[in-house]
């Protein structure tokens, strides 16, 4: 009886696992499987991937664009949230509460509503069609969460650590850099990782603000899908999905621990 119940449980959970994995597994399979109307018509092979590699300005351009946007976003978020989080955790300055509310209010405003003015504004500040500009815009949307997490992380570091450093002759900036920042490394990794995934996967901001040759990978893939009139090359589409997914998934899995920790220390408390 107990065994029957147990095997039923395993059967059910195995089905559950399959439901979530099946679409990904299918994409992987379909990208190398033979299909009419794709580059791979006979037998299994990587013809779809060669088509993908040669699409438009070449796949490496788009991967490069994606990396540029993501790295800029991560750097901007890390700089802004460590300094900002530290200020909110350690200092009492005029307008502190107002500033903190201002940071959180970024969360309240739907970013879809900001894109129309940004089309015009990015040109006004000489950052139109710029990967760096898009990276910083993506960073903006991660500021509330990141600042909140970094503030909590710094609050969890005993003040005595920096005070001891200052007794030893460090100035406040050295104490911040040499003592406080290393102490919040796990939070830094979570914020950085979440930002990277967010930026790597972004579609909408680049759709509004970047031209085709500056397109990051997701936008390039969506453009490519409808490249040929009247025909859709599903082989190359699924190959593109695989290429997009693999880096994100490797990062995600290898850093799952931090990811979970990030949520425990930040999001839920708020």
């Amino acid at each position: 009886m107990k065994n029957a119940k147990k095997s039923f449980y395993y059967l059910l959970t195995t089905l559950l696992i399959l439901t979530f994995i099946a679409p990904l597994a299918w994409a992987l399979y379909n990208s190398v499987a033979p299909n009419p109307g794709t580059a791979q018509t006979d037998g299994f092979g990587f013809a779809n991937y060669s088509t993908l590699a040669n699409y438009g300005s070449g796949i490496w351009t788009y991967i490069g664009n994606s990396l540029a946007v993501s790295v800029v976003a991560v750097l901007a978020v890390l700089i802004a949230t460590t300094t900002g989080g530290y200020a909110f955790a350690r200092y009492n300055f005029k307008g502190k509460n107002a500033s903190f509310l201002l940071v959180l209010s970024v969360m309240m405003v739907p970013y879809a509503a900001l894109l129309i003015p940004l089309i015009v504004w990015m040109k006004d500040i000489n950052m139109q069609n710029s990967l760096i500009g898009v990276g910083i815009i993506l960073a903006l949307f991660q500021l509330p969460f990141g600042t909140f997490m970094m503030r909590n992380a710094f609050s969890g570091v005993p003040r005595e650590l920096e005070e001891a450093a200052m007794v030893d002759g460090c100035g406040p900036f050295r104490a911040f850099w040499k003592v406080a920042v290393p102490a919040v490394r796990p939070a830094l990794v979570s914020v950085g990782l979440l930002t990277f995934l967010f930026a790597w996967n972004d579609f909408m901001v680049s759709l509004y603000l970047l031209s085709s040759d500056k397109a990051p990978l997701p936008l390039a893939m969506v453009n490519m899908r409808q490249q040929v009139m009247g025909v859709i090359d599903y082989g190359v589409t699924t190959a593109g999905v695989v290429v997009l997914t693999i880096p994100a998934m490797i990062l995600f899995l290898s850093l799952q621990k931090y990811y979970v920790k990030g949520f425990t220390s930040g999001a839920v408390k708020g």
Partner: protein
Amino acid sequence: MVRKSPSGTEGQGLRERLAPPRRVPNAVKEHEDVRASRGHQGIVKGPSRSEVLGNRLGWTFVSPTLLIIALLFIAPIVLVFVMAATKWTLMGGQQDVNFPENFHKVFADPLLMDSAWFTLKYTFATTFIIMPIALGLAMLVQESRRWNNIIRTAILLPSALGIASSSLLFYALYSPQVGPLNSILAKLGLMEQNASLLGSPNGALWATVFLVVWRFSGYYMLLTMVGLQAIPPDVYEAAKIDGANRFQSFMNITLPLLKPTLAMTWIMSITGSLLAFDQFYVLTKGGPNNSTVTVVQLIYKYAFETKKDLGMAAALSVIVLVALVVINFFMLKSMGVNDEED
């Protein structure tokens, strides 16, 4: 956050202010500056030097954040209101102030009500499906065991994908040409082999909902799990001793204690769904026959597809912005009220 400073700090701050500064050695001096910089407003009238310093350091540290916000958040918000009141076409650029014509045009568009209604329908559908699934999954895999870790990882995997890339994946999956679903459904007699799953309004809606459930269940499961793990196990032990069964302890312990977490995940899901764009842009393009146009997609259509009118798009952006701020405000408020009731 800073208000918890030990009572000694104020004394030190006072003492430091009374004592001639030269007498204090450098290092100690700085050390006291840091302490002095917190929590003594109202005790001494007028800013002290250390207060000024704290102010300056605080502002210095917070400046990168504020710089980004001023440049890319506040400026665009101001601009969106200006644009909403201006005739401003995509290819012709800024022209004359025409308030409130852009708003008139937006409200006169029959697509506005259709898209608002569809967005609400979609939001209800996704939220009421994902949230129970996420809670169920979280309770299923909450205990840290080898097998559970495998299940958890599998469910979390789709969260690594972007919405656009998962939409592309499902676009292929739903296609009559290569997708496996058509032939399965055709064999079951549920549809014609060559018809498209995305071809009917209902098909397109539910196909998208399915994709979103697949993509987001793991994410919300994770958030819910974190909330579950914050409930102390001895509460359950005590309930067990009192003779409560599983259902009773779920209703009387888990749900109430999970309330803040649930409130947060619901708000996130509702806000996210109200702003849905990528999945419809990729999967349905708003079709068939405009039956799956969301409000945010309508902004895009105004700007780039039909009207090519940035003024109208900005007017609708303003409407969405105000609506979302109001909705969020009320949702947060209702969450706050709930907390007080507890």
